[in-house]
């Protein structure tokens, strides 16, 4: 009896042991090793020595690769914004207007991601090519100037990132919208919730202007015309399409999904280097490109380790702040 009780107590640990050990050795410890490696000096041939004097790797790396770090944050934020703009109406339609096609629509949202990440990105290269299937005909018709290009610009990189990480935004938003009780919206309408005016016009104009202006800034375009366009479309949407029941009920209840989706999109977007490599040029290199080439092409392990350690710490802080404020349930339930 005594032995049996002991065994019962031990069971969960026995079940956990192999998997958790694997994660400790090959996930948790490597993070520590990366920190140690950032204090390395030497080469692969001569071997590495650890010395605290090598802390200078950090300021040196930051100074040299600061622009790439900044670009990663800007591109990551721009891609997250674009993902939100595409994903929210999409998830909303599937959740509330999907009807019997709900599962089919959801499947169509996920299906493209059954193809290889690299092939999808390669396809965008074909689509966005200077004389490719999209711009070639437009140029022939004279609708675009012969020098117009998207490939090898920040727009192509951000578009590629936004495309590749879209499900990370769509699914959490869908999950939180799906949970909303439709009767709440009906009750609001019974209580005379109507169009949201003038709040919608003002908020729409503000949000639209800021979003479009911010994206234009990220793409290094002229801010003013885009901001004006954003204000106009924001005012139109805010005035005619946003209802009070949406602003007061649906939007607040879906915010956990929006936050979770934004975090789950921003993290991989910031660390990405595939899109910048395949769709960008030397002026669009992100921190991921630097880490990749320092590690795999230059064998400059200390600098690469310092850079990825800083990236990891930055992201862990963001995750910790998020988890502290909102908990981790939303993140894992749909991931």
């Amino acid at each position, binding site marked *: 009896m005594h032995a049996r009780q002991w065994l019962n107590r031990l069971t969960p640990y026995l079940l*956990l042991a192999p998997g958790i050990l694997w*994660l400790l050795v090959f996930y*948790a410890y490597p993070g520590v090793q990366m920190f140690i490696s950032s204090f390395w000096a030497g080469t692969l041939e001569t071997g590495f020595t650890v010395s605290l004097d090598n802390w200078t790797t950090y300021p040196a790396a930051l100074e040299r690769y600061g622009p790439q770090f900044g670009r990663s944050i800007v591109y990551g934020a721009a891609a997250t914004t674009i993902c939100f703009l595409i994903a929210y109406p999409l998830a909303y339609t599937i959740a509330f*207007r999907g009807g019997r096609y709900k599962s089919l629509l959801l499947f169509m949202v996920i299906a493209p991601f059954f193809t290889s990440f690299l092939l999808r990105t390669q396809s965008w290269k074909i689509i966005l090519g200077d004389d490719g299937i999209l711009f070639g005909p437009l140029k022939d018709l004279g609708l675009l100037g012969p020098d117009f290009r998207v490939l090898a610009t920040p727009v192509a990189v951000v578009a590629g990132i936004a*495309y590749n990480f879209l499900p990370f935004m769509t699914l959490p938003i869908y999950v939180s919208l799906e949970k909303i009780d439709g009767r709440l919206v009906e009750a609001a309408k019974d209580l005379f919730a109507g169009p949201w005016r003038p709040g919608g016009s003002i908020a729409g104009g503000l949000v639209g202007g800021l979003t479009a202006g911010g994206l234009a800034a990220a793409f290094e375009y002229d801010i003013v015309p885009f901001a004006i366009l954003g204000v106009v479309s924001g005012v139109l949407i805010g005035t005619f399409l946003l209802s009070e029941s949406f602003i007061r009920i649906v939007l607040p209840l879906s915010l956990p999904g929006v936050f979770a989706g934004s975090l789950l999109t921003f993290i991989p977007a910031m660390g990405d280097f595939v899109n910048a490599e395949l769709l960008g040029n030397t002026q669009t290199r992100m921190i991921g490109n630097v880490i990749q080439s320092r590690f795999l092409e230059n064998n400059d392990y200390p600098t690469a380790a310092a850079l990825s350690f800083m990236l990891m710490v930055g992201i862990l802080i963001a995750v910790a702040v998020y988890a502290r404020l909102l908990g981790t349930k939303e993140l894992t339930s749909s991931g």
Partner: protein
Amino acid sequence: MTGTTAPAQHARPRRAAAIRFLDRYLLYAYTAFAILYLMLPVAVMALFSVNDPPGKSNVIWHGFSFDAWLNPFGVPQLFDVVRTSVVVALLSTIAATTLGTLIALALVRYNFRGSAATNILIFLPMATPEIVLGASLLTLFVAIGDPPFFPTNFVTILIAHIMFNISYVVVTVRARLYGFDRHLEEAAMDLGANEWTTFWKVTFPMILPGIMAAALLAFSLSIDDYVITAFTAGRTSTFPIFIWGSARIGVPVQVNVIGTAFFLIAVGFVALTTILQNRASRPLPPPAAGRERAELEPGRAALTEAEA
């Protein structure tokens, strides 16, 4: 509007109707556009699998040719890299699904000290960018510096793939375990089954769909992984690494063929499992209605009965 009040009163509902129309169909149009946008790269990939480029570069449409489909491995190394990818995916799926299912069972079934810390350890790898996962593993392998870890090779790819798959398996199986009716297990025990028999005869068959879903997810994550593999592969090449390597000089048409085939297989597989699951979970008709249906569709009623 001529200034009299009557047309204005008419105008209001008409405008409201117009807005309702817009509100309704604008969303549908937007969704259709979004799905088109999602599907476009897949369509382009498939289209360029029947392209007939004169040289190596396959980015401009030249003409229709089915050659690559008839000879999908007609490029040096391509067969080897696809085989490596499939082997890595199979082995890592088996290992990660086993380890992850055990963790999920422990987390859902037992209250124990350290379960909160375990949850965090499961969650973090999914919130860490792939590049950090790959880079930190590489520093570990370089620090060890000896075979089988360094130089990096097939074994290190496998280690990495098992690592990043475990969390996804835990999350998927755990979701299935939460909805599990424990009375069924108690009933089996009451009827004299021991724990071992109960697990294999009751628990396991019931969570099997969850385990299968987890395994499918793990397989597709593994076979498609480029970033982490790039850091842990050394001289070993997988299908994504092959694509990356050929991206600069021109991706051969055969790569599109294999990509399209993978896509069709995955979609077919998901469609098949969905159909089977829907059929299995379809509620049984009440007896009277069942008899009526039996007269109308004998075959289908027999099928429902057989499933019951």
